């Protein structure tokens, strides 16, 4: 589904990703974890070219992502941000139907039907005509997930989706993500929620210092990490 080959990214003289290769299969749920500054978010943002990789190839489906086709590929890669980034001047419903109408060119009626269904799924149908500023953090993030899903993507990317939330709102967002995983969505999740990663992910990618240090199942990773760095990290967070 997604193939990443020798991905490198530098900001000026600072090399954040030092050559990462991995493959993600359809319907796989990947949790990307690691200490802050390990390059997790940059890794995720390189996949849909929000950051331009310094070198390396990324293939989504059969398509090698280039400068030219990135817009088309992005339609298939839904992204959820730490700080939601809902469009504040649009209502919840307008947030959901904007891209399907303006990028995919589907009719307002059809887009609205899809949006209504998604809002019901994330439990926010009754908020469809509210503006984002009137929602709680957890509600905003659920809308943001629905907005990404409205494009009917084949892969969902999550960039620390619960890190900006108050503790009592983390659960509702994780619940939505879990049901999404159960429905068979391919997901790549950068997260600090170890419990969630262990429960929901099929594979853990542990990044440290710009390298992919471990690539293991949650059981392997959490009960018997191979590298000293992963052990050290788990000692600190668990």
């Amino acid at each position, binding site marked *: 589904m997604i193939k990443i080959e020798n991905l490198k990214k530098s900001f000026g003289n600072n090399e954040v990703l030092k050559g990462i290769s991995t493959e993600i299969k359809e319907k796989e749920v990947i949790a990307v974890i690691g200490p802050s500054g390990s390059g997790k978010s940059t890794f995720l943002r390189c996949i849909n070219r929000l950051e331009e990789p310094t070198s390396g190839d990324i293939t989504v489906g059969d398509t090698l992502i280039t400068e030219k086709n990135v817009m088309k590929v992005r339609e298939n*890669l839904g*992204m959820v941000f730490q700080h939601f*980034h809902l*469009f504040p*001047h*649009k209502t919840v419903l307008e947030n959901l139907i*904007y891209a399907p109408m303006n990028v995919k060119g589907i009719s307002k009626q059809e887009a609205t039907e899809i949006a209504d269904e998604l809002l019901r799924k994330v439990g926010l149908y009754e908020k469809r005509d509210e503006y984002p500023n009137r929602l709680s953090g957890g509600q905003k993030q659920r809308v943001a997930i629905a907005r990404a899903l409205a*494009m009917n993507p084949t892969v969902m990317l999550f960039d620390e989706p619960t890190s900006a939330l108050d503790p009592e709102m983390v659960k509702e967002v994780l619940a939505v993500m879990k049901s999404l995983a159960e429905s068979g969505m391919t997901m790549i999740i950068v997260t600090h929620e170890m419990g969630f990663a262990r429960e929901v992910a099929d594979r853990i990618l542990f990044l440290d210092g710009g390298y992919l240090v471990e690539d293991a199942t949650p059981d392997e990773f959490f009960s018997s990490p191979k590298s000293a760095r992963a052990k050290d990290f788990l000692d600190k967070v668990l």
Partner: protein
Amino acid sequence: MFDFSKVVPSIPYILQGIGVTLQIVIFATIVGLVLGILLALCKIGSIKPLKWFAEFYTSIFRGTPLVLQLMLIYYAIPQFIGTNIDPIPAAIIAFGLNSGAYVSEIIRAGINAVDKGQQEAARALGVPYAKMMKDIILPQAMKNILPSLMNEFITLNKESAIVTVIGALDIMRRAYVVGGSTFRYFEPLLIAGVIYYIMTLVLTFLGRTIEKRMRRSD
């Protein structure tokens, strides 16, 4: 001391200047706004020559007197093109070009103040650059800069009085003409002042109304 009796018959004449002033201000505002948005997009864009042009343009129009620009267009340009330009179109061009420079700076600052995450979200959804600017970034920028924009147009409304120097029959010019023919300057100038003041109040009120409408999403 005041004697309005000689001036009263000329009041309708002065009032007719409102139409001329409004005509200049409204069209110059439209030119300024469109030009300002285009220049602002050039300034924040990645195409270097356009960026340089927009910055050079702004520095020229902000760095020279408006009355000079007006005179260049009305008196000097016809020297090259061989036909005269009427005072009102000349004023619209001069004020529009000048206002565009100021408006572009206001809009550029407004665009930069929009959270960078908004662009990222739009890009991640596959929204093309032009649509992103038109539907996502500019509406948010406009909301933030509306007070500065209104200020610019209020200034333009008052500054338009300098069309007097090229003989356009606006409020100011008419008041001056009435002064000259009745030998009483204070009264017609006072009337002109009141008219400008009322126009400014109306503009301010309009601005507040638009602002309120745009704050719906807060």
